């Protein structure tokens, strides 16, 4: 038995427990060393992910391939960046406890398990490990009522979605006789393999997974959770779980249910259309930056889903590239939001950023880069995400999705450039506080990534191509 294929997850889980133990036994404030240890664990895990060979194990419950490797690296990068942003914020808000990095770490273990799932049960276990950790970190600022409220909403709706997912899994198991992806794929390939009951089961599974990526119609939790959660948690929720959820959706729909693509394709198309339209229109009226980012996230998930709806290798490649780009620009914007602090007080209204270009030109420039990138203006990274996704849609002849997609991106551009307008064209508000060094570092790194993606995109596209090939191999 090749138990080594799960080595990154095992090492990460063990180091999580070790860090927890260390935090408890350490006499002084353990948050700083625990943060550092967690970052180190992520680094080690990333190294192990890259060095683990392909294969499947644990009775075909667990699989490692180019796809899982690609997504795991992305998850680790997103989680590490989010954790880096949390240092100063948590200390400032008085919630710098050593449990925080540990919970993030266990969420990451859950996500990595999800991504490697080759069985619906593995999928469910990974998902729950991730979600439970996320509920707790959402409520991490336990004295703030908004944080607790957000966590409660997240928990109730998340439990509902998990219920739907589990119900779908049981239906699939009942009608197809297996929960293993490989067995499902061969069972469904047989003529007459898809009974109506099975299709109903698949719809429930999709519903549960769509909740994960906060796409319409299971998006309701997103704005409240984004707004209420402590900002570093919002960063985290906005990046790694989205990547993991989307990867899960990609793998589940194209591997075990790939032969039924005619049955689920329309569903994904509708989800994608709904997300793009809602993301574009609902964000227009928002004044809270974090809430706006929630609607923007819904829209971006809609674009990513175009790649899945295309149902081709090019489509999956496009979706994966979109996720890479999205993670970096999203972290970048949130780095800016975390820097929004005046006289020690956090503020989140967009109007508070008025005239930032005069008071803090560097931060305003970074914001502008991320916002234009989110709007999909070349030559920034966001353009390439959209380029590859729309290319796949055009190749698959999905003109409705493509045309509505580009038009909603114009509507979306309106609210992104409105923020640029507030920062560059309005009369300056009082200056913001000195940025913490770590925040500046993250903003600069992600900003450089966004600007220069055009120069080094080739290897990333090639890796995404290799990852997409696995699911169609």
């Amino acid at each position: 038995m090749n138990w080594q294929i799960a080595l990154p997850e095992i090492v990460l889980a063990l180091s999580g427990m070790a860090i927890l133990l260390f935090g408890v036994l350490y006499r002084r404030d353990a948050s700083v060393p625990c943060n550092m240890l967690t970052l180190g664990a992520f680094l080690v895990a990333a190294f192990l992910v890259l060095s683990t060979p392909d294969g499947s194990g644990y009775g075909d419950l667990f699989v490692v391939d180019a796809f899982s490797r690609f997504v795991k690296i992305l998850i680790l990068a997103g989680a590490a960046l989010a954790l880096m942003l949390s240092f100063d914020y948590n200390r400032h808000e008085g919630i710098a406890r050593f449990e925080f990095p540990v919970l993030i770490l266990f969420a990451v273990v859950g996500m990595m398990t999800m991504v490697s799932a080759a069985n619906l049960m593995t999928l469910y276990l990974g998902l729950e490990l991730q979600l439970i950790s996320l509920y707790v970190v959402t409520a991490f600022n336990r004295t703030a009522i908004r944080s607790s409220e957000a966590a409660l909403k997240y928990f109730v709706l998340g439990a509902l979605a998990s219920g739907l997912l589990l119900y779908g899994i049981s239906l699939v198991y009942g009608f197809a006789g297996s929960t293993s992806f490989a067995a499902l794929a061969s069972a469904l390939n047989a003529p007459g393999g898809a009974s109506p009951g099975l299709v109903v089961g698949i719809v429930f599974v999709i519903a549960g997974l769509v909740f994960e990526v906060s796409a319409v119609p299971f998006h309701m939790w997103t704005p409240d959770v984004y707004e209420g959660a402590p900002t570093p948690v919002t960063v985290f929720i906005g990046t790694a779980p989205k990547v993991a959820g989307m990867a899960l959706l990609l793998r589940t729909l194209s591997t075990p249910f790939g032969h039924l693509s005619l049955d689920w394709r329309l569903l994904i198309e509708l989800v994608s259309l709904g997300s793009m339209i809602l993301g574009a229109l609902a964000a227009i009226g928002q004044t809270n930056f974090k809430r706006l980012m929630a609607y923007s996230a819904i829209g971006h998930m809609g674009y990513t889903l175009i790649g899945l709806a295309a149902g081709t290798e090019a489509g999956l490649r496009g979706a994966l590239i979109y996720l890479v780009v999205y993670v970096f620009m999203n972290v970048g914007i949130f780095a800016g939001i975390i820097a929004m602090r005046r006289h020690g007080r956090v503020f989140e209204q967009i109007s508070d950023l008025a005239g930032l270009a005069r008071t803090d030109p560097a931060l305003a420039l970074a914001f502008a880069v991320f916002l234009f990138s989110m709007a999909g203006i070349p030559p920034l990274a966001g353009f390439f995400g959209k380029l590859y996704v729309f290319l796949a849609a055009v190749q698959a002849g999905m003109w409705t999705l493509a045309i509505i997609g580009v038009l909603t991106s114009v509507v979306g551009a309106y609210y992104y450039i409105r923020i640029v307008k507030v920062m560059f064209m309005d009369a300056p508000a009082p200056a913001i506080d000195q940025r913490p060094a770590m925040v500046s570092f993250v903003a600069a790194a992600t900003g450089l990534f966004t600007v220069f993606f055009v120069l080094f995109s080739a290897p990333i596209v090639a890796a995404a191509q290799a990852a997409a090939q696995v699911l169609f191999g």
Partner: protein
Amino acid sequence: MNAAGFPVLSLVTWLPLVGGAIILSIRGDAEAVARNARWAALWTSLIVFGLSLVLWVKFNPSDPGFQFVENVPWMPEYGLTYHLGVDGISVLFVLLSTALTPICVLASWEIIKYQVREYMLAFLILETMMVGTFCSLDFIIFYMFFEGTLIPMYLIIGVWGGPRRIYSAFKFFLFTLAGSVLLLLAILAVWYQTGTMDIATLLHTKLPASMQIWLFLAFLASFAVKLPMWPVHTWLPDAHVEAPTAGSVMLAGVLLKFGGYGFLRFSVPLLPVASATLAPLMFALGVMAVIYTSFVALAQDDMKKLIAYSSVAHMGLVTIGTFTFNEQGLQGAMFQMLSHGVVSAALFLCVGVLYDRLHTHEIDRFGGLIDRMPFYALILMFFSLASVGLPGTSGFVGEILVMIGALQVNFWLALLGGTGMILSVGYMLYMYRRVIFGTIMHADLKNFLDLSPREVAVFAPLVVLTLWMGIYPASFTSFWAASIGQIVQNHQMAMLHGVHLAGMLPR
């Protein structure tokens, strides 16, 4: 290696960004930063202009193909290359962009008082994007430059513009973006259909006729907004009125040419069947633009708005000339664009001179300026007449060529298109009379000074260019004669081929 012996196009394209990086690294107090930023921007743009003169000298006018070509694989597995080159159609637009940038920097020398560093940076980024748009021979790279102009222009209008600058900046951004995203879809469809994005290859590729119509409409959505054509021109007057002088100059001088360049480079050669089929629609839109916007211009009280509407009318002539598909018409369209690039830029600079002194461009706030500013009155007279198309100035050559081309297609087209020339005399001279002649009604005009040496330096090259283009147009037409000839020839071949094909197909 190319004729210049070094990658001249890459240098011209990217050098402004190097200048931008230098400007970003300037440190010191606000005054020193502003001063150094101005000088750095001026020197960068002058060096770039000097480099671009290599194109003027070394360009071989008898070769209709692409010259100074640079071809580096970028993403080979998708057939994307970093492919630059210029032919007769694009080379003078590159020169126009590099020539107008230092003029813009000079024109903004004193009037821009805050955030000078960011302003100069925006102009240098804009220059990179403009030159790149005209040089790129890969459709995706073209789109990136084409669309990339939005970011600096949005900021230029929105940050340094007039009182309604925010509305105008949004309108500019969203109108252009909405057209461009449809262009992107069309580009992707072409990519999927042909498997290549290389423009030089695409020009010899035949696309199915049924697809051409849709592609043409998608191209039109983008180029019509940029040109701009009636009825999607409404962003232009707003953008011009609110933009700072130099922003208007760039907008009128170069950015509008993207539309005409797009038609000449992509729509006509790539989609010959659709172009021929939809030519009547284009003529109708062109005539509509000429007549309607000329009348609208007649009713304007704002100098910049008036010139903006006159731009729409002039661009209507470009549309008509492009879709005649004969040599005179296409040459006329090219000449008209180039001439408009110089003359309208100069007219906006003329308005800028007054704006610098009084901070308004309302026509009624002026009058009787001939007493105080005789030299300025002369300059404004010169460019107004050039815009009208006085023989001996550049405006005449373009209009007469377009008319000759249009006459070969249809008498009424030429007649209706020609009314623009008469109407333009009306609105330009009417404006001129109200601004320059009469008695001084407003006390604050009495202490106006005539043009300063800096302003003379701004206008002098434009006067020379306008006269040169008007008196000896051959030194410009020779650049594109071969390329235009090839477009016409290819179009006729494609039409012949199309007719044969249509005859062979069963009903």
